[in-house]
């Protein structure tokens, strides 16, 4: 429940800002709400095309039930319990509070005394009214008043907080983001209890009016980057934002790249950790995936477990992941290169084994590799799409087709099957899905290079890839930092992880300057003479003599 109220606070801030603006603007523009209740209701009906999920409830309030009032809301996206208990009921029953109520002070009294919900505000324009209505607010219209009251009653069915599906970790919080923006921001706020955790909201999408919020820690995040994110988001003019992927692709620095330049995550602890490094989180309503900017390359190989586990294990695992990534990129290409160009580079015994297997295969090595890789991609794609019930059938068929039948039929060689399997497993082991899929694409590019020029092709493709990576920027932060440009102070948390005590500095290009993450004095000081025995007596181990 706390989350719910926090979310309310959030929306309140937002709406108050907007209403503040509105009050200054001159009254009675064409888009303004009229005095007549029935006309107003007609306008609502007309604008919404008589949509049947718009509920209108007529009540009469005031000392003599003289004021005709209508409560309007959209079924399903509001918390109907709240509307009944705290809105309609108090409008209808709290007569002692309505004694002085008249047309002039109706709005004030309703806001101040009647509605027991946290955020209520006045609206006088149609567009705003409809936006509120569609966002899950409840509108109160009073006959004879050219204003409407909007009561924040967002609600409806929500998915409960569950363990994230795409980013699983062994240790650490089990909470994952859900589809509701408010819940998501609250999850982060619960971790970082600081007033400096700032949140800004906006609505993006001309049709969908999706709630988008950016969150950062004031004082840590770089002001220029915040401004850049804000301005890029404000510039967006699209019909719809259905998922964070839209925003990601719309605001990234470079479109023509297979690499993700924004990080997306389902985990609040990752968001919190990145906010503390100075990054900016972009929350989008309707998706559990939160974007983090600026993103750097090494970030995609880090998992939360690295920070929770001891540094030696974490370092080993990170190095392993880099190895895995390289394998997933070049394993099939290396196979092609070795079997068609550089047979001299493998030991004789191995070349004989591979040659024996290739003997019966009717395709060139490259075609063989291509067939297997494409087959695997098909299987993987099918595995995602298939209903869970038949999913296992695919894996059985896949295993049989690839592993058994193809080899026995002499269409592919067992070595190729091994290569494809390693590649497949490797591509699943990359912690970030968006990085793993870019590897899938690049793999084919490198395979073609290998098929035409062997290792020369692979190495050139690799250098080109490196140059491309180095040319990327994410919100003007070079993608390969802190490796290139090399920043010594930040190398501790890249493809290695130093002990926490040595990770004193925040990422230089991402966070504000002169910010030291940690103090120097926190290192624990074990008692001096606790070498061989634990000597609490103060006499050392010679206390018998």
């Amino acid at each position, binding site marked *: 429940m706390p989350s719910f109220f926090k979310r309310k606070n959030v929306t309140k801030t937002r709406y108050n800002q907007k209403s503040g603006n509105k009050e200054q603007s001159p009254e009675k523009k064409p888009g303004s709400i009229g005095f007549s209740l029935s006309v107003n209701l007609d306008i609502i009906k007309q604008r919404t095309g008589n949509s049947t999920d718009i509920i209108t409830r007529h009540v009469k309030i005031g000392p003599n039930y003289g004021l005709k009032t209508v409560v309007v809301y959209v079924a399903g996206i509001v918390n109907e319990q709240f509307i009944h208990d705290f809105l309609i009921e108090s409008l209808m029953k709290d007569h002692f509070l309505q004694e002085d109520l008249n047309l002039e002070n109706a709005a004030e009294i309703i806001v101040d005394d009647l509605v027991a919900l946290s955020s209520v505000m006045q609206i006088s324009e149609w567009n705003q009214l409809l936006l509120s209505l569609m966002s899950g607010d409840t509108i109160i219209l009073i006959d004879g008043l050219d204003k409407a009251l909007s009561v924040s009653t967002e609600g409806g069915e929500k998915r409960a907080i569950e363990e994230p599906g795409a980013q699983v970790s062994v240790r650490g919080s089990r909470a994952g983001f859900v589809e509701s923006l408010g819940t998501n921001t609250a999850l982060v706020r619960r971790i970082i209890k600081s007033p400096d955790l700032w949140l800004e909201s906006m609505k993006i999408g001309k049709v969908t009016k999706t709630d988008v919020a950016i969150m950062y820690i004031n004082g840590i995040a770089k002001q220029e980057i915040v401004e850049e994110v804000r301005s890029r988001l404000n510039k967006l003019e699209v019909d719809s934002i259905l998922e964070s992927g839209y925003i990601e692709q719309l605001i990234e620095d470079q479109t023509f790249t297979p690499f993700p330049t924004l990080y997306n995550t389902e985990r609040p602890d990752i968001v919190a950790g990145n906010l503390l490094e100075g990054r900016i989180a972009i929350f989008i309503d309707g998706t559990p995936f939160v974007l983090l900017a600026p993103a750097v390359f090494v970030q995609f190989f880090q998992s939360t477990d690295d920070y929770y586990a001891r540094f030696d294990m974490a370092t080993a695992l990170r190095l392993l992941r880099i190895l895995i990534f390289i394998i997933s990129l070049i394993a099939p290409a290396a196979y092609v290169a070795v079997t068609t160009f550089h047979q001299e580079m493998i030991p*004789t015994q191995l070349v004989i084994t591979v040659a*024996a297997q290739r003997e*019966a295969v009717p395709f060139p090595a490259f075609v063989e590799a291509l067939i297997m890789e494409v087959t695997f991609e098909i299987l993987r794609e099918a595995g995602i799409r298939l209903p869970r019930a038949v999913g296992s059938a695919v894996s059985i068929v896949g295993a049989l087709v690839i592993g058994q039948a193809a080899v026995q039929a002499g269409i592919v060689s067992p070595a190729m099957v091994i290569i494809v399997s390693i590649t497949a497993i490797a591509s699943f082991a990359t912690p970030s899905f968006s990085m793993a899929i870019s590897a899938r694409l690049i793999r084919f590019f490198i395979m073609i290079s290998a*098929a035409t020029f062997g290792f020369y092709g692979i190495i050139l493709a690799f250098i080109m890839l490196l140059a491309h990576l180095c040319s990327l920027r994410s919100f003007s932060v070079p993608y390969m930092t802190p490796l290139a440009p090399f920043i010594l102070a930040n190398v501790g948390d890249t493809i290695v992880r130093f002990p926490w005590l040595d990770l004193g500095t925040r990422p230089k290009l991402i966070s504000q300057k002169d910010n030291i993450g940690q103090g120097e004095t926190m290192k624990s000081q074990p008692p001096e003479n606790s070498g061989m025995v634990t000597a609490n007596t103060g006499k050392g181990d010679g206390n018998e003599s």
Partner: protein
Amino acid sequence: MGMNRKWAFLFLMLACISLVSGCWSKKELTDVALVSALGIDIDEKGRYVGTFQIINPGNVAGGMQGGGAGQGPSVSVYSTTGNNIVEVSRRASTKISRRLYYAHTNLVVVSDELAEKEGLAAIMDAFDRHPEFRTTARVVIARESSAADIVKTLTAVDKIPANKVIKTMELTEKRWGEHVKTNIQEVTKDLVSPGKEPILTGFRMIGNAKKGEKMENVQESALDAILQADAIAVFKDDKLVDWLTGETARGTLWVLDKIKSTGISIDWQDKQEAIAYQVVRQKTKVTATMKNGQPQISINVQAEGDIDEANVPVNLADPRVLLRIEKALGKEIEKEIHKSIQHASQHKTDIFGFGEAMHRSEPESWKRMEKNWNDEHFPKLKVKVNVDAYIRRTGLRSKPMHFGGHLRVGPPVGQRVKAVGFSTPRG
């Protein structure tokens, strides 16, 4: 726009390259014949006869595709003639359906006839120059057999005959020390150097060559034809001049510091070769000096090892006895070394690299002697040999069983088994 154009350009370029290339330098594994060994003979007309041992991968490797692993011969052998090595190799395409691929040729066999008449230099250039050939390929001389026989003979255990030859040679160098593994690089180095002459291991086919080519050869427990390391070939300039065998061969390896472990037997109390000593490690230092205008070489050998066998009553628990044995061992090794030096002097060929040692320590004098080192200076060379042999352990027993016990029956001299070279279980 600019973006799209750039990427279109990139894509086009890639597409062109991959399509146009048609893949030069590309060779599918199914289109290459992996040559495991190459034998070179010389025919009556003085032309080279190349014998290619080509691996049949399917018959070597197990697994599903192999299917008939072990059913056919593991290698196929083809021969062609030509006036030079490249011609031999290219002409082979008339007989072999696949491109000969030499990157896995680990063995080159040269017939003794060729080595005597033509010399190695002519053929080594092709191997040294060719980018495909590994300079780490071993070279052996076929002794009293043709190179073709060595290449053709099928072997058991190690399915690929080339492997068997190489592994035999490596093993015997390591364990016994009368043969030496030499690769193309070392040969060419020695051929060029004025201060050192090459030596190569000889291999001999023992048995019936015709039977050795057949599958039946490997289907018997006692093979009809086997390949055996046999003597060390001594070269002068690039021509084969002599063979070293037995202790003379080992003496050479001592000087070259190539002994890793070996067995040495000494006489004890009138009993011949009664104590067997196993060398575990050794270090030889060759230093060259000029004394009174004469080149002088001193060889310092330090050997360490264990007593492996004692067939006489000798108290090995007594350090003084060990000291005496050590002395005797030193003498024995010294004798071997002197023997080999004498042998080389007779043929006027410096296989020990004394010349190089001279070059290093006395560059000025070397310049004078360089030209006729082998013929003039080397045979007259004064060589001082000093050997220190150390016994570190005596195996699991101290005294032999004849010692002091009632059992005084050493095996009769005639039936004694020479058991040198056994490894101790401690390894």
